[in-house]
């Protein structure tokens, strides 16, 4: 993270704000709620308080305008620059301006006002841009799930450097951004996607093209705005070209960028009993046209041709996959080998010989 010097931050903790005008893109109440929530992001982790005032000049003046709005930093029409804010100070200091040429939303559609406002108020409080791609203060707009937003640890560290911690006895912590070389990485799910590999991890995916040396980190919602974070399992059926993504008792089908209509659906429609509340891992074995679903110490086999569960399942994992520990985090079938990801390690497994070929670190795919 990066901030202004402490001496340039606000020298008081009780700050005021005023909404000068409103965007017509949203009902007024939604703008007010987004702004209020954006301030709360920062007040939750510091001693700062934000009070809305109406009839006099406040510390943080908030406005929507298009093009040249007389601050020597004109907006540039749709896209490009979305908003800007000034570091703490008198007059224009602390003020936040939003480009009225953008479409402001309260959903995952571009551009979510709460997410942009939370970022801009970071500047209003003295934070500069962060180089952490998972941080709120990263300069590019990140399509993340606004409903699941949690202030990342990098931003918490930045704001607490300037203003100290909140008085809350339980100090809030935030998510960190994974790195390629982190040996402790535990994937939520792994799948192929039209020749590429996709590793799901909290709110991120690592995207690895077989010819690229390194995997690329991005937010889940950058590709699929309506997908939740922290998914449980995923697999690709190369015949239908669909990716099925599981979370809890629901699953969603993806086709490339698109979430197919009619989803999410109930996993019980696939033939699971009601006792199954979530799936740990799923993997499609192409030459068998079967998909294996792993749940705790058991697994089910689903026949993709018949579109039904095979008879005689569930079976115990230890009976059919000797040596593979229970509670599988993710599974992948790639170039004739089956990979079980369990915690920080993965087991490369030969389906024909029913033997573990080797044990590797989970992150061996990412190009560290």
């Amino acid at each position, binding site marked *: 993270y*990066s901030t202004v010097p402490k001496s340039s931050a606000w020298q008081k903790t009780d700050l005021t704000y005023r909404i000068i005008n409103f965007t017509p893109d949203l009902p007024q109440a939604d703008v007010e709620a987004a702004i209020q929530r954006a301030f709360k992001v920062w007040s939750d982790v510091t001693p700062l308080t934000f009070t809305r005032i109406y009839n006099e000049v406040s510390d943080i003046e908030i406005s929507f305008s298009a093009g040249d709005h007389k601050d020597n*930093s004109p*907006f540039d029409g749709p*896209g*490009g*620059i*979305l*908003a*800007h*804010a000034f570091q703490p100070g008198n007059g224009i200091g602390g003020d936040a301006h939003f480009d009225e040429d953008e479409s402001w939303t309260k959903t995952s559609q*571009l*551009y979510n006002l709460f997410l*942009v406002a939370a*970022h*801009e108020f970071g*500047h209003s409080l003295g934070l*500069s*841009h962060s*180089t952490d*791609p998972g941080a709120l203060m990263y*300069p*590019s*707009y990140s399509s993340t799930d606004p409903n699941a937003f949690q202030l990342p640890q990098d931003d918490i560290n930045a704001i607490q450097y300037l203003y100290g911690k909140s008085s809350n006895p339980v100090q809030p912590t935030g998510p960190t951004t994974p790195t390629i070389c982190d040996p402790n990485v535990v994937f939520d799910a792994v799948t192929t*996607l*039209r020749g*590429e590999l996709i590793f799901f991890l909290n709110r991120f995916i690592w995207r690895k093209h077989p010819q690229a040396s390194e995997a690329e980190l991005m937010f889940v919602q950058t590709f699929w705005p309506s997908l939740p974070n922290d998914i449980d399992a995923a697999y690709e059926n190369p015949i239908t070209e669909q990716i099925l993504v599981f979370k809890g008792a629901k699953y969603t089908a993806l086709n*490339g*960028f698109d979430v197919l209509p009619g989803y999410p659906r109930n996993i019980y429609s696939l033939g699971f009993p009601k006792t199954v509340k979530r799936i740990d891992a799923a993997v499609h074995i192409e030459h068998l046209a079967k998909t294996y679903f792993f749940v705790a110490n058991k697994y089910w086999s689903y026949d993709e041709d018949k579109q039904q569960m095979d008879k005689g399942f569930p079976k115990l994992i230890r009976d059919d996959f000797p040596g593979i520990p229970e509670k599988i985090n993710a599974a992948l079938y790639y170039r004739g080998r089956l990979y079980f990801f369990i915690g920080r390690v993965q087991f490369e497994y030969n389906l024909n010989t029913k033997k573990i070929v080797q044990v590797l670190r989970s992150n061996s795919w990412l190009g560290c």
Partner: protein
Amino acid sequence: FPTDKQDAPTGTSEEMAENYLKKFYSLGTEGGPVGRKKNNRPFTEKLQQMQKFFGLKVTGILDSKTIEVMQKPRCGVYDVGQ
């Protein structure tokens, strides 16, 4: 599913990059006289600074990945201190 753009940078891309670096990396706006420097190429230096900031491969060359990052919607505040 998107593939990486393979198109070579055009004149428009260079113009766009120059504007981007002027806006967010103070290209050509440092105050005061600047001493003579061997191989002084401010565009390349600023481009490298930008590539380093965004975790891109630092080449000083306007490649497709760099252009892609420059075209992303973003906040209008400088990435580097003035």
